[in-house]
């Protein structure tokens, strides 16, 4: 209808006597041609612009890289770099004004290079790179990103500040740790953990949103790489109403080997979320919590299949010979192939039996059971 009205208004008189269908078709033809031309122009000029930028960045990247490599070598060989040396580096790099240093593009390139080197250097060189970042005024550049409207630019700014300006105040990041945008929030939380070494885990108290696996990986990486961080007992968050926080804390309990968390983990065996149950069982196994063994066996029949498999693996890790009878019974039940296979793996790992010893202690087996035993003893499979 809209096309028809537009057509009547725009089209020359010759078309106005045509049927509605034709008027609409003519309008669509016109608009399609116009849109195609615009798209072509965008593609063409986009390419022209891209090749211009490409030339510029290649040139800038080479210059930046040469200068930085030179000074990094210098820093590494000298050790503790003096304030004067640092100023000299900054002046040299500032000479890149020929490359329109003030342009966002070149500044961003410089930041990317510094971040890259920062990730690959430690000690004095790393500190010198951070100082260089600040001396060049790039901190302000990153900081300004926090005041844009695009969440991804904010997240990028936070990531740069976290990497390059460790002495900045974490309070500048704090407002973003409650952002409604999941990605920005997690980036801010990761930066907060990195920058606020005194109380880095306060976000665990407040987060009501689900912490998806990817975000857990980011935060886990940030926490475990920070050697200055004060590690709290993570079992205090195992009562959180947010299941994803519990799962995340269980991962940290395993990483920091916190055996004090075992009683709290045992309580989680009754948790309503199967994923939490699974992770708790996994943690009990990895912490080699021998006290949890009889409890897990007692709970076994009430667990889901995935939890049962996790219990069998946990028993293998706990490595106590008392569980062999239970594992043997599970293997012989053979109501589920994967459970029987997992049970047999655990028997082999715990008992240390040879194939012959194992077979001697077992009754007549069916073909599937024999196949499982052969599988567990095959060195090529378990390489």
């Amino acid at each position, binding site marked *: 209808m809209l096309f028809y009205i537009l057509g009547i208004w725009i089209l020359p008189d010759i078309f106005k006597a045509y049927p509605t269908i034709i008027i609409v078709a003519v309008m669509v*033809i016109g608009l399609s041609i116009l849109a*195609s031309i615009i*798209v072509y122009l965008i593609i063409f000029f986009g390419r022209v612009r891209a090749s211009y930028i490409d030339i510029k960045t290649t040139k800038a990247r080479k210059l930046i890289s040469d200068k930085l490599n030179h000074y990094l070598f210098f820093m590494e060989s000298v050790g503790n770099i003096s304030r004067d040396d640092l100023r000299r580096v900054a002046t040299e790099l500032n000479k890149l004004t020929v490359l329109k240093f003030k342009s966002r593009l070149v500044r961003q390139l410089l930041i990317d290079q510094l971040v890259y080197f920062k990730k690959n250097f430690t000690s004095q060189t790393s500190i010198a790179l951070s100082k260089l970042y600040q001396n060049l005024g790039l901190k302000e550049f990153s900081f300004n990103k926090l005041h844009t409207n695009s969440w991804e630019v904010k997240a990028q700014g936070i990531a740069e500040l976290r990497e390059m300006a460790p002495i900045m105040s974490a309070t500048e990041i704090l407002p973003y740790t409650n952002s409604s945008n999941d990605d920005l929030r997690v980036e801010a939380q990761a930066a907060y953990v990195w920058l606020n070494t005194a109380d880095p885990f306060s976000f665990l108290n407040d987060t009501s949103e689900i912490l998806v696996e990817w975000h857990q990986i980011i935060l886990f990486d940030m926490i475990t790489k920070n050697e200055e961080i004060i590690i709290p007992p993570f079992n205090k968050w195992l009562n959180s109403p947010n299941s994803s926080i519990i799962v995340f804390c269980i991962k940290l309990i395993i990483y920091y080997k916190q055996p004090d968390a075992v009683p709290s983990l045992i309580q989680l065996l009754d948790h309503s979320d199967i994923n939490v149950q699974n992770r708790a069982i996994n943690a009990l196994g990895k912490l080699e919590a021998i006290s949890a063994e009889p409890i897990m066996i007692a709970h076994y029949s009430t667990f889901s299949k995935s939890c049962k498999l996790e219990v069998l693996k946990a028993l293998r890790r706990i490595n106590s010979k008392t569980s062999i009878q239970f594992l043997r019974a599970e293997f012989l039940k053979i109501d589920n192939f994967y459970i029987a296979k997992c049970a047999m793996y655990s028997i082999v790992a715990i008992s240390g039996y040879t194939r012959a010893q194992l077979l001697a202690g077992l009754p007549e087996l069916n073909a599937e059971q024999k196949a499982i035993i052969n599988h567990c003893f095959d060195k090529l499979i378990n390489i």
Partner: protein
Amino acid sequence: MEIHFQYYLHLIYDRLIFFYSVLIMLSYLTLLVLSIFEIKKYLKRNSYIDHKLLLSSPYAPGISVIAPAYNEAATIDYNVHSLLSLDYPCFEVIIINDGSTDDTLEILIDKYQLKPTAFAYYEQIITQPVKQLFKSSNPVYSRLLVIDKENGGSKADASNAGINAALYPIFLCTDVDCILRRDTLLKMVKPFIEEKVKVIAAGAVIRIVNSCEVESGVLTKVKIPAKFLPLFQELEYVRAFLVGRMAWSKVNALLLVSGGLGMFDKKTVIAAGGYDHASFGEDMELVTRMRGYMERQKTPYAVRYIPESLCWTEVPDNIRVFGSQRTRWTKGLAQNLWIHKKMIFNPRYGRFGMIALPYWLLFEWFAPIIEFTGILYYIYLILTHSINWDFAIILLAFVYTFSVMITVTAVLWDEITQKQYTSKTEVMKLCTAAFFEPFLYHPLALFFSLRGNYFFFTGKKLHWGNMIRTGFAGSKNLIKATVSKVKIRRKKQHEKR
């Protein structure tokens, strides 16, 4: 009687078909808009992310890479090497030798130092008998598992055998001759770990390797296809992946994750029954069945697509193979919609049943048939001298200009996403091809679609056929060398016998 017939014929073709065309065009426009939103969202979310974080994470989920191989002796060595070189901390590669009649298995045994194992193969999905499983005695290839099975007559059967043997909760299904980008697993696993709902499948853009430069199974230079058929197929792929799939991903109603590159949640696939070996569109059929299963379970789920080109595959460059492939695809689509007809317009299946399936029924399955009858009507009008040439030309121009506009916009989306081609000339060549596609390529695609429908409606038997590989630019010597190696080995075996 004749007057009535003509009246209804005119009514259908002058009015109804026009509105049908307008509806298709509106749906394309909607897909175009939705797709750019989804692409932008993806680009934003990944603009500052370092995917390599996963490489050092102990919590990266394990992935089984499943690649069926049938008579791939010429390139299997490099293909497997390429799969084993993927960047990911925790994965295995499962090659299924689907009863090859050439030396595929012998080459694998020789190159990867394979030995038979006592692998306890558990058949959760029924397949043709598995003869033997192999693992490498060299720890360098510890990630490799080779299954030798009897030929099942379809890729589906071989893939199911791979799923049965898979160790990890997520699997990537690909063709052994596809070239994957090294970070494919890092990129494709992300939807599985970043969504709040369970992701049951994910796909990514597949591109055409014909004319690209390849060395030892690794893509070294992307080039636009030089030949007629691959060039138009490239255009079609860009449009299908970057517009169609991305848009359907946006509304979570994606029906198809390509067999060439698809990542799946193993538990859901097994619960849904695995690939259907009787289907000619087993990839689409699997996603349809998985969706149906999830909807019936009332479990929130998603199927996602990534706008990045992660996989390169060789496409047919001769009419015979192309025709056979397209006929199969159309028959597969028709089979799939027919098998799952109860889901179509069924509110129980949510937007999938109410939007996606009706779209595929009306605008994908029926479109070639309606188009063909339209052509017949045009011929009828010409023969009876009742055609209004002015109107006829305007209506043809209407369809033509719109289709060109959609295609060039798809190329623009590709440019926004990743600028796959290094030179301006190549992009312009692709854009120019858009002008000729409706005349040169579309009639061919239409013809083979009709042929597929003919095979479906008549129940005539259709064979899978074999994709004839001509090799990629820069890799021909390599293929020649491999082929001669195979010949020498055959000769030796013959002498032994």
